[in-house]
């Protein structure tokens, strides 16, 4: 199993281990106190084949589940991971004062001195939320000051905790979209604004299934597979104009001046969402200004350079192991530049055509 990088600190490993466990326990104790006040609200989900229980203190943060409702299960027995979720505003329970110094806040919210092999701690700038995971107990706590979280926290909820825990189970979160059909799926990589969401959302009106358009989950079963994680789309306000059919379905219409448009795909296109597909190819979208969509074979290394940095630099404690995982995942797959046409309706047929070609064993040559 890959082991996430541990952040070095001037504090001794023994001291870090002891402080981290103590901190986790105090945050978990406060969660339990808050839940005694509000009552428990519990939901269960199957994520990448693992049973994950979300235990809320009251209903204030229940909207965090909207992006993962397509993974819901009624079977709430024996969770592999339990995530406790609470906020201070609705429960009246104050959070413990932070025990670390200002210069302990590292990039991507990692807290220096409170990250060990067992305990993972991160602070989310922007929402001021704290995520902490006890890997040994398969128990995590997510705390936020209140339920007024930014749209992206609802669009890709519990991202840090899921990234840490799922990686320990051999599953890697990736900043990539995925679509496909009965022949398999294509992973669509690239940094924000490269065309991932445009490509994935265009497929909602086609024969292709939708797995995700921002973050998806990669595994290596008998071969490379992609699991759906969030069925939420985030679009710039100018992009959303290109999808007039989606406009009435936007979840945050009153906040579009300050936020990206958020769409919960499973709430409107439930039949289109696929929870798992074997991956047949990786595509890197590129806007060309030409009307037609075309595919050009590109190298695996070029694909890795597009896929890995935008994943690694957005996830706390992601590093060399994530890079190696993505390299291993991409290495056997054919990779293409998806030259996205201005005529968006040409995108799905191009992808369907590629999947058919792969099925029949005739692939475009590398250039």
């Amino acid at each position: 199993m890959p082991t996430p990088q541990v952040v070095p600190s001037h504090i001794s490993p023994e001291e870090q281990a002891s402080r981290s466990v103590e901190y986790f326990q105090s945050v978990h104790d406060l969660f339990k106190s808050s839940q005694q006040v509000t009552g428990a609200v519990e939901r269960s989900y199957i994520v990448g084949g693992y049973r994950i229980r979300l235990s809320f203190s009251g209903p204030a943060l229940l909207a965090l589940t909207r992006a993962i409702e397509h993974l819901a299960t009624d079977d709430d027995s024996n969770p592999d991971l339990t995530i406790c979720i609470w906020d201070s505003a609705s429960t009246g329970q104050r959070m413990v004062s932070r025990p670390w110094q200002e210069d302990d806040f590292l990039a991507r919210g990692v807290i220096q001195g409170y990250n060990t092999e067992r305990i993972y701690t991160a602070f989310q700038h922007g929402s001021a939320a704290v995520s902490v995971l006890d890997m040994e107990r398969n128990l995590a706590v997510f705390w936020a000051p209140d339920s007024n979280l930014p749209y992206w926290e609802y669009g890709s909820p519990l991202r840090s905790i899921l990234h840490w825990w799922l990686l320990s189970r051999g599953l890697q979160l990736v900043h990539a979209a995925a679509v496909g059909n009965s022949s398999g799926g294509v992973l669509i990589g690239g940094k924000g604004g490269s065309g991932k969401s445009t490509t994935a959302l265009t497929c909602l009106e086609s024969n292709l299934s939708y797995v995700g358009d921002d973050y998806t989950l990669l595994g290596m079963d008998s071969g490379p597979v992609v699991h759906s994680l969030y069925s939420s789309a985030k679009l710039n306000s100018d992009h959303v104009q290109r999808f007039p059919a989606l406009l009435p379905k936007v979840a945050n219409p009153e906040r579009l001046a300050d936020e990206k448009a958020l769409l919960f795909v499973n709430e409107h296109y439930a039949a289109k969402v696929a929870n798992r597909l074997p991956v047949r190819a990786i595509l890197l979208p590129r806007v060309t200004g030409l009307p037609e969509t075309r595919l050009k074979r590109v190298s695996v290394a070029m694909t890795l350079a597009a896929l890995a940095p935008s994943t690694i630099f957005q996830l706390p404690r992601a590093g060399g192991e994530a890079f190696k995982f993505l390299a291993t995942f991409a290495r056997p797959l054919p990779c293409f530049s998806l030259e996205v046409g201005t005529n968006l309706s040409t995108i799905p047929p191009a992808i369907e055509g590629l999947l058919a070609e792969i099925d029949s064993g005739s692939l475009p040559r590398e250039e």
Partner: protein
Amino acid sequence: MTNQRFRVNTPTVTHETIDGEAVIINLDSGNYYSLVDVGSFIWGLVEKGASAGEVQDVILQAYQGDATDVDRGVQDLLAQLQQENLIVPVDDSVTFDNEQVLSSNGHEKPAFNAPLLHKYSDMQELLLLDPIHDVDEAGWPKPVPDPPK
């Protein structure tokens, strides 16, 4: 300088070479890099413990090129790799087996073209978000106005 050996600056730097193309990430700076052709070959030699002089010897045997051009190309690339903190000098105690490298490089001698280190800085913005902001009464930083992408 010619006897100087290097190591890849792990764990700050992570890298993979696939089909003759090297992708290198500096996890601290957020920069990432690619090397192709002779650049990727040199990266592989440095990783195996070759000194600057040994890299030049191998390149001269494996590629068709003027010794001065090879010397300049290799030195420039090594200097760049050091400047970007991708490699760091190590003690001259490693044994480098250039026979193994050359035998696995085949018999065709391609022309030597000065290696280019392609650098990409578009991820830096994700790392350089100022992590310290105004704090509330419990010591927690207040939310930043601009959310991450």
